[in-house]
């Protein structure tokens, strides 16, 4: 369901990621877009053009913040300076929720800038849930955690990825940003049925869905966000919507970015699967 406590009770439809090559088109043409997702770290600054553009976007559009380096899954606690900057940005954007990834990526203050996969252990469940709760309490906003694409699995794992996700969000009492492309990519890399994953997710906690394209290599798939969404991913999206109802949906396109209109057209394909607001209310 779109408007729940995990979305700050806000109803969002189909959005797209705000990317630099589209700035001018958006500012000049003011296209009708339900909402934009921003990468928080690109705007956690003290001045200059990025914030100036963001302020102009905020005059006309709803913006939701999505992070790439909070690293909920780090064994260490969240970085307080990062949290302070992030919170300041949430005041600027008035984002109804914030999202970041169910992954780790820094040790002793050294950042990999990657979304590294979790070992699915009980210790990791506890530490990740602790970190998410800390972030949620500090930001005073709902947090949604996103499943990542992965290329490796750990011997230490004690459960499946979706069992891990479910345990974490239950203990942290947070939302889920369900990335159906990531589920597809990981299912191909780790040879599981992606529908098992989608069917196992607690639907009531899904605050947002990501869709995207990827790149297939000979023996694995990389989550490159540089292609249109492929039919098997749309199939997963359809199933997710059947289970979750109308859900805020966002197309990610980060590399070889085509024109704004092409990206927007690709995103709007999602509306075919989304129930409208009235149908959702009646349900």
């Amino acid at each position, binding site marked *: 369901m779109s408007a729940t406590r995990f979305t700050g009770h806000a109803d969002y439809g189909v959005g797209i990621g705000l990317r630099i090559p589209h700035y001018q088109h958006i500012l000049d043409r003011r296209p009708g877009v339900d909402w934009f997702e921003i*990468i928080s770290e690109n705007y956690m600054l003290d001045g200059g053009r990025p914030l100036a553009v963001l302020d102009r976007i905020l005059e006309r559009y709803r913006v939701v913040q999505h992070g790439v380096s909070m690293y909920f899954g780090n064994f260490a606690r969240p970085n307080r300076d990062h949290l302070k900057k992030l919170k300041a940005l949430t005041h600027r954007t008035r984002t109804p929720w914030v999202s970041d990834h169910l992954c780790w990526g820094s040790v002793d203050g050294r950042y990999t800038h990657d979304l590294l996969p979790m070992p699915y*252990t009980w210790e990791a469940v506890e530490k990740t849930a602790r970190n998410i709760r800390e972030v949620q309490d500090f930001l005073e906003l709902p947090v949604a955690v996103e499943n990542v694409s992965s290329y490796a699995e750990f011997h230490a794992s004690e459960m499946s990825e979706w069992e891990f996700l479910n345990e974490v969000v239950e203990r942290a009492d947070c939302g889920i940003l369900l990335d159906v492309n990531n589920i597809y990519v990981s299912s191909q890399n780790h040879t599981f049925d992606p529908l098992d994953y989608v069917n196992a997710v607690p639907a009531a906690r899904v605050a947002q869905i990501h869709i995207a394209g990827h790149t297939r290599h000979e023996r694995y798939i990389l989550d490159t966000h540089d292609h249109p969404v492929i039919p098997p991913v749309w199939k997963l999206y359809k199933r997710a919507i059947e289970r979750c109802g109308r859900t805020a949906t966002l197309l990610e396109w980060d590399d070889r970015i085509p024109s704004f209109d092409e990206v927007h057209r690709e995103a709007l394909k999602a509306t075919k699967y989304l129930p409208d607001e009235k149908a959702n209310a009646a349900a």
Partner: protein
Amino acid sequence: MKKRTPPRDTGASLEEIQRLMTRAVTRPLTSGERSQRAWADGSRTADVAASFIKPNDLLTSFERVQIYNQQYWWRILGSFQEDFRGLRAVLGERRFDRLAVAYLEAHGSTSWSLRNLGKLLPAFLENHPALTAPHTALALDMARVEWARIVAFDDPELPPLDPATLARKTPATIRLRLQPYITLLALAHPVDALLRKLRQSTLETGSASNAVAASRRRRPVLLRAKPEPTPLHLAIHRVDLSVYFKRLEPEAFILLTALNAGASLEGACASAFAKSPTGAEEAAAKVREWFATWMELGWLAKG
């Protein structure tokens, strides 16, 4: 959902796994952009990978770790190249890559943003001249200016100085500072002109995302003819959110540097012309003209 009961923990701790994986991910790649076959202690990387990463029918443990190892280096080298295209043009692709790996091994990212990746590069170049010889001075100038451009792009702006403030006080009591986004540099080469040329041949992009790189991007531009040394004083600043270079007279450079260091206006002016043959009247006229420009550009704030 009903909470499951955790079984007794028997495996490696989360901290141990993350430390080991971090070492594997951040080890420099080979010249063929593959993971190194030998681990730091001389054992086989394949054995280390197999000790904590599962293989499957598609990939070995080594190959799975290698994907992350490549992604790490492609991502940070890509960002570093974006930030220091001028330096890359000075050194050429292969030398720049060697320098980049040496620098990034010594100074990996300590920020949630890749924006700060090159902050320590000028100091690193000063301490490792062999990496840039025989073009060390030019490389250092270029790195300083390219880092200053990043600062000028998005560092904060203080409320510009109200001209009435200047009128109300005597020069001995006026203390001013430069906007934080401005960097003043004394250079030995006309790096500003070189960068303008290079910018014409490349596009500016760059932002964080959660996508991975399909491969490392290469847009090599080599500056074959190195410019003759030409001392100059440069301010790297911004106007209407765009970054600009402004050449300064030596006395103006000294004056601004002194003001920014906390000197009074009177003291800064005195130090600016202490070794200058400029007469008092001409000096006063210059200072008036400079201040008019700097106020118009919004460079000055209350000290």
